[in-house]
């Protein structure tokens, strides 16, 4: 049962809420309490929703909550402000022979709001961001 953890992660999963160090401008996602520069003075910051693919991997045997969506493509996305996040690539063709033909390094993506997985048959649906090619 991971419902409490899902609940505490809502600001990040739903709204991409990060924080930004007021001293050096560094952005942390998820937010941190102390910056690498030592400062504890942060301002709230929302990540941009566009970016590009830095790299990706294809997971062909995911855990069972993701099994129906397999293969799962996970990408490191560099957002417009330089922040890097990991996100599942969605809205891919259902049959792909060669992913390198479909997903180019540097390809532009937008972040979208999707169902990440469902907890068993009767559990909650967990929502959050994924990315898709523009």
């Amino acid at each position, binding site marked *: 049962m991971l419902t409490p953890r899902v609940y505490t992660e*809502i600001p990040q999963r739903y709204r991409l809420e990060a924080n930004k160090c007021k001293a050096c401008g560094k952005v942390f996602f998820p937010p941190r309490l102390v910056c690498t520069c030592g400062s504890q003075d942060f301002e709230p910051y929302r990540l941009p929703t566009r970016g590009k693919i830095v790299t990706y991997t294809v997971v062909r045997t995911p855990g069972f909550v993701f099994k*129906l*969506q397999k293969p799962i493509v996970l990408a490191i996305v560099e957002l417009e402000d330089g922040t890097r996040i990991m996100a599942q690539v*969605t809205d891919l063709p259902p049959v792909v022979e060669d992913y390198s033909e479909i997903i180019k390094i540097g390809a532009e993506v937008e972040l*979208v*709001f*999707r169902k990440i997985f469902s907890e068993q048959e009767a559990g*909650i*649906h967990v*929502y959050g961001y994924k990315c898709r090619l523009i």
Partner: protein
Amino acid sequence: MKVGIVGYGAYIPRYRIKAEEIAKQWGDDPEAIKNGLDLYEKSVPGMDEDTITISYMAAKYALQRAGIDPKEIGALYIGSESHPYAVKPSGTVVAEALGITPDVHVADFEFACKAGSEAMFVAYSHVKAGNMKYAMGIGADTSQGAPGDALEYSAAAGGAAFIFGTENIVAEVEYTYSFTTDTPDFWRREHEFYPQHAGRFTGEPAYFKHVLSCARELMKMAGATPQDFAYAVFHMPNGKFPVRAGSILGFKKEQLLTGLVVPWMGNTYSGSSPTGLTAILDEAKPGDRILMVSFGSGAGSDGFIFRVTDRILEVRDKAPKTWEQIKSDKRMYLDYGLYAKFRGKIILRPEL
């Protein structure tokens, strides 16, 4: 005080299935579907899409066009017959994701295919009553027809969101009217997967009676005739019903074509006429009048008369347009096997 739409958005998934592909599965004549019902292909939600995610995307686009602070939205209503939970609102997830919580009134509406126009109606009424500065009404669905049922050709996925307010209006609401009776034309009992419908009964005493009565009364209130409207959009269970309703009322097909999204998108139920309205707003000129009449089985119709303002020209390019999404070059076609998996039409037991 003028009240109207200040931002609008539609979202249509990228997956499609063609009428031919469904017809092949069930031994139907695809030409009869295409010519008889004017249905060519329909949208299919991705496996990670549902009424909540579709509502969010439509709302996000509406906010982009409105250019307002989401915190100023005082109410968020989602109309759907495919809310992902039987108990737990769709609206709370969407409101949280948009950053509207906690100072917001949220409710999920249900009324077959007219739940979306209901959400719009209540959102509009709040603003008109002065209860709040802005209110959002959304209609979205990931509709299902039973395998082999005629509804399978039309039941599609998509939605539209509208933010109502008093400043920077893009389409003023001039008149509203609702026509409602108890008509058992289409229903789904609790715990049933697929809806039942009363066959031929669904045409005359249900769809046509309610749509025509609502449109006539609304035009009477406005002292208007069909020639006074640049566009009209009626609920679209297929491509034929709305065109016939329009023709009975005296509208020409040219007035209907822009909003007639169903042949290439399918019937998005609560999102049907609302999505048609977004397609019209993408194209309408300042001063144009629009007639919109929804229909929900059970049965009822909500009608609106809108007048487009100059501001439409400033906002329409700030989010993806409806026809661009319908005819997107990003469309991906599914065969029936993949469609059945995407829609959970086969028993899926990933834990085994």
